[in-house]
C-alpha cells in the first residue's frame, strides 16, 4: 500500500500524461498515485486516461494553477 508521488510541475505535453502512466505501470494494486502538475491540458487528459485504463480517480484539487490528482490503483 505505497503512496507514490509524481511531480510534473513545469512540464508540458506529453510529459505529465506519460509520467503518470509510467508510475501507474510500476504501482501495485492498493497503491495510491498522486500527480502534481501545472500543465492545464493534462488536468483534463489524465482523468480521461484513467477512465480508459479502468482506474479510480480519488480526487482532483487545484490551487493557484497547480493541480493535484489522486489515483487509486
Amino acid at each position, binding site marked *: 500500500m505505497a503512496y507514490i508521488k509524481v511531480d510534473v510541475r513545469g512540464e508540458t505535453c506529453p510529459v505529465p500524461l506519460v509520467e*503518470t502512466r509510467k508510475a501507474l505501470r510500476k504501482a501495485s494494486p492498493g497503491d495510491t498515485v498522486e500527480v502534481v502538475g501545472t500543465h492545464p491540458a493534462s488536468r483534463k487528459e489524465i482523468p480521461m486516461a484513467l477512465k480508459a485504463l479502468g482506474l479510480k480517480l480519488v480526487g482532483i484539487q487545484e490551487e493557484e494553477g497547480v493541480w493535484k490528482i489522486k489515483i487509486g490503483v
Partner: protein
Amino acid sequence: MTDKTTIVVHSGDMDKIYSALIIANGSLSMGMEASLYFTFWGLERLIKGKLEKGALSRMHMFGLGKWMIRRRMRAANVASLEKLLQDFKELGGKIIACEMTMQIMGIHREDLRQDLIDEYGAVGAYIQEARESTITLFI
C-alpha cells in the same frame, strides 16, 4: 480490433518526429498499444547520433528557424526526442524499421540504434499492424 495506434514515420523533419512520438506516447499512456513504422527520411532519425538532426518542415531557413524553435521549446520545457523515444519503449511501444529503405539508402543494421528496433520489415509488417489498429497515421 485492438485499441492500437500505428504510425508510418516517413518524414525525418524534427517537428514531424515530435508529432509522431507525442501521439504514440499519448496512445500508450491512455492504455492503447502503439507501433511506429520508420521508413524513408524517418528511418534516418534512427541512425546513431541522428535523432535530433532533422530539419524543420517549414521555415528551416538554413537552420536559423530550427535554432529559434529549439530555443522556444527549451523555454517551454518541451521534452527532448530522446526522452520521448525512451518513454515510448518503456511503455511497451514497438518500432519497425523498413528494410527497403535500408537497402536504398545503404543503411546497415549496425548503423541503426538496434536496441530500439523490435522488427525489420516491409509493407506486410505495416499492414499487419494497421489492420488491427483503431488509429493509423502517415506522418
